[in-house]
């Protein structure tokens, strides 16, 4: 196999041979190779984030009819580096009364939770961190670590605003975790495995064709999971003082932003793996480099869609957001989980294309009917606490009843 058809394996073999030529035993080669692989796979995304910030700012500014960063370097490409240096040398202000461990652990954990997802993502047929047989479960598990980071930040900051924002964020994130996990079961049913490599290999056709409604719900829920518009109530810039990370400054604050930008891209990776066929495409099995290109085209399209949603939709109110999750998405995904396997089992003996059409049709039908039924039952306005009729400051309202002498 030539270098250009599979550069990842070629580089790996070259590196292993290099280590062996120095005089390391086979176990030493394996351990050093693993360490270097882990470092590349962990440092890569963090450096990639710098580029992502530039992409994001450019796209959002073009949506808003602005130019965006264009001064530092060609097309403003070095702007994120300048920002990074600037935020790196800002003072770390630690307010009085903070809990040292939760306060300092939180930004680290926020980044680590996102980085860990990259360990199991299959980039090509040969290039992946580790081929874990519970890969999807692992992704969901480490996704929850990010919520733990928010809880630590809110609890350790010794600030009422941070605490309340933490409650809001965590309520949103754990609520949207439910339809996300339930949607992730559908690819597992179709592939019969939790292994992400197996899920990618089973996608003939792509799962977005077989289960379009599930893919759409998964996409929307992903937007909520990364806390972007229209679900950016966690840090509504125009309404709140920044949310749970209010007491952070310097690079600790920057780490939350790194985590957020990287999470957006990571969510695109997960979506492309589960529903868009991962690295699959013509010739991807023989030439893994092609698979890598296909994969990043798919991820790029998903990421661009995420940015479009972010740049164009107005923010939801918190009761609308919670209703959308608990009263629309959760019932629909549960009904999908009831109907989808049933249709699949009943159509098991028919041709594949007929089965796919039946599955996709039933899937879309549930979404349309379910959406009609559930949204018609949603309240227009939030339930009110207290009464709307409040006494007006008029003389007759100040009049007290005559004292009858009876003690109450």
């Amino acid at each position: 196999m030539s270098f250009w058809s599979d550069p990842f394996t070629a580089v790996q073999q070259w590196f292993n041979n290099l280590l062996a030529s120095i005089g390391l035993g086979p176990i030493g080669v394996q351990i050093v190779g693993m360490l270097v692989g882990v470092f590349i796979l962990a440092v890569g995304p963090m450096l990639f984030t710098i580029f992502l910030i530039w992409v994001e700012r450019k796209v959002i500014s073009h949506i808003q009819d602005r130019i965006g960063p264009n001064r530092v370097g060609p097309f403003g490409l070095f702007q994120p580096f300048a920002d990074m240096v600037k935020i790196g040398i800002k003072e770390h202000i630690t307010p009085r009364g903070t809990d040292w461990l939760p306060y300092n652990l939180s930004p680290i954990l926020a980044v680590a939770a996102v980085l860990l997802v990259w360990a199991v993502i299959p980039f090509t047929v040969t290039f992946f961190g580790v081929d874990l047989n519970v890969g999807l479960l692992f992704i969901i598990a480490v996704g929850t670590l990010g919520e733990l980071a928010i809880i630590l930040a809110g609890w350790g900051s010794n600030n009422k605003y941070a605490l309340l924002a933490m409650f809001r964020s965590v309520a949103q994130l754990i609520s949207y975790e439910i339809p996300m996990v339930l949607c992730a079961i559908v690819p597992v049913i179709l592939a019969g495995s939790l292994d992400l490599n197996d899920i990618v290999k089973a996608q003939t056709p792509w799962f977005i064709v077989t289960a379009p409604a599930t893919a759409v719900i998964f996409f929307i829920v992903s937007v909520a999971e990364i806390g972007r518009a229209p679900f950016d109530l966690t840090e509504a810039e125009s309404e709140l003082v920044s949310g749970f990370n209010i007491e952070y400054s310097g690079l600790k604050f920057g780490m939350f932003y790194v985590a957020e930008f990287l999470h957006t891209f990571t969510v695109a990776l997960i979506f492309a793996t589960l529903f868009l066929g991962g690295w699959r495409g013509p010739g991807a099995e023989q030439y893994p480099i092609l698979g890598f290109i296909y994969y990043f085209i798919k991820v790029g399209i998903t990421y661009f869609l995420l940015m479009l949603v972010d740049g164009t939709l107005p923010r939801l109110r918190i009761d609308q957001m919670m209703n959308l999750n608990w009263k629309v998405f959760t019932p629909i995904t549960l009904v999908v989980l009831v109907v989808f396997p049933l249709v699949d089992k009943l159509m098991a003996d028919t041709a594949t294309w007929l089965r796919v059409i039946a599955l996709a049709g039933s899937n879309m039908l549930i979404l349309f009917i379910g959406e009609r039924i559930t949204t018609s039952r949603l309240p227009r306005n939030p339930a009110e606490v207290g009464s709307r009729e409040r006494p007006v400051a008029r003389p007759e309202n100040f009049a007290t009843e005559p004292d009858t002498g009876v003690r109450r």
Partner: protein
Amino acid sequence: MLSHWLYIGVFVLVALFLPAVAISLAAILAPKKPNKIKVSTYECGMETVGPSIAQFKVQYYVYPLFFLIFDVEAVLLFPWAVAYNQLALYGVIEAMLFILILLGGLAYAWRKGALDWR
């Protein structure tokens, strides 16, 4: 198999190590000039009153309870989904009953108003 989890273990350490190093480096580079106003709790310029562990709405407690119910359900459904191809129709109907019971629970909670944001 064990080497897979060893890889994950190393990855966890590295993933925690990288941001920690970045923050430590920045802490060395950054100036350190705290004063009384700077390190006070930020509440938009207002004086802080009372403890920072404020009272919160009971709603924030109800949603995690629902989360717990449905997350445990998902944990039970994942093995079923993996074994799905070997299951006969009966296995599917059994899982259906399980999900329908939960849907009933969701409908009950909805009817009782536990899902309303107040």
